[in-house]
């Protein structure tokens, strides 16, 4: 069971409010600067992706974010009713070497993989994307997509 749950409609206005709630929650828990940044980064990339790519005028999305605080990790779960999307199957872009070759896509998921320890995904029987991202509270964080 999550320690905290944030629910929001898939709009950037609601996103801004929820991001502030998340920030206050992490500060209130005394989470260190690095894991706090990583949790906010994962939240930003996943939720903005859902709003931008998963939802549209035809698909009204609701997003639910659960946070569970463990001794050595923050476990963030994201549920939404957008079309199925397993980010683990997305081929991450190569790191760009020149301005001209820098791709416009995939950077957000690349940052999520670098900020997290583990990424799990399932498409539920209730037709929801359920993504779980584990963020280490201390020590090295390794790329985890897949």
């Amino acid at each position, binding site marked *: 069971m999550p320690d905290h749950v944030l629910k929001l409609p898939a709009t*950037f206005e609601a*996103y*801004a409010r929820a*991001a502030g709630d998340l920030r206050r929650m992490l500060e209130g828990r005394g989470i260190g*600067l*690095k894991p706090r*940044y990583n949790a*906010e*980064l994962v939240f*930003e*990339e996943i939720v*903005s992706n859902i709003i931008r790519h998963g939802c549209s005028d035809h698909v009204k999305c609701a997003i639910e974010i659960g946070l569970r605080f463990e001794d050595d990790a923050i476990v963030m779960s994201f549920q939404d009713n957008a079309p199925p999307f397993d980010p683990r199957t997305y081929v991450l872009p190569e*790191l*760009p*070497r*020149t*301005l*001209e070759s*820098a791709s*416009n896509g995939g*950077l*957000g998921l*690349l*940052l999520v993989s*670098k900020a997290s320890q583990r990424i799990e995904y399932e498409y539920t029987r209730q037709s929801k994307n359920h993504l779980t991202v584990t963020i280490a509270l201390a020590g090295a964080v390794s790329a985890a997509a897949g």
Partner: protein
Amino acid sequence: MQIEIKEMEGDLRRVTLTGRLDTPGVLGIEPRFVTSLIPGGKNAIVDITNVDFIASMGIRMFISVARNMKDNHAKLALYGPQPRVDEVLESSAFRQLVPVCKDAEEAAAAVRS
């Protein structure tokens, strides 16, 4: 998110950003950032000392503007990243595309080189 733009001596612009470069932050400043920097072919340095968060939207904005400035024979450099912001710039290989400097002097030298 706040943006301040100042014309400097020697055909240089200095942009000072304050706040968070997450999606709402970028949506708030991007139009002014783009229209102030791309036309005119002037070099620009960006003070990010008071930017305490950056995500992919912010990185994309800088890459897009730097690419368009390059087409106009101008350069962009950032300076003063906070440690966490610097880590994200590092992990996205951003430093290979746009100079990220210690201070304004170093950034001005980087865009004039």
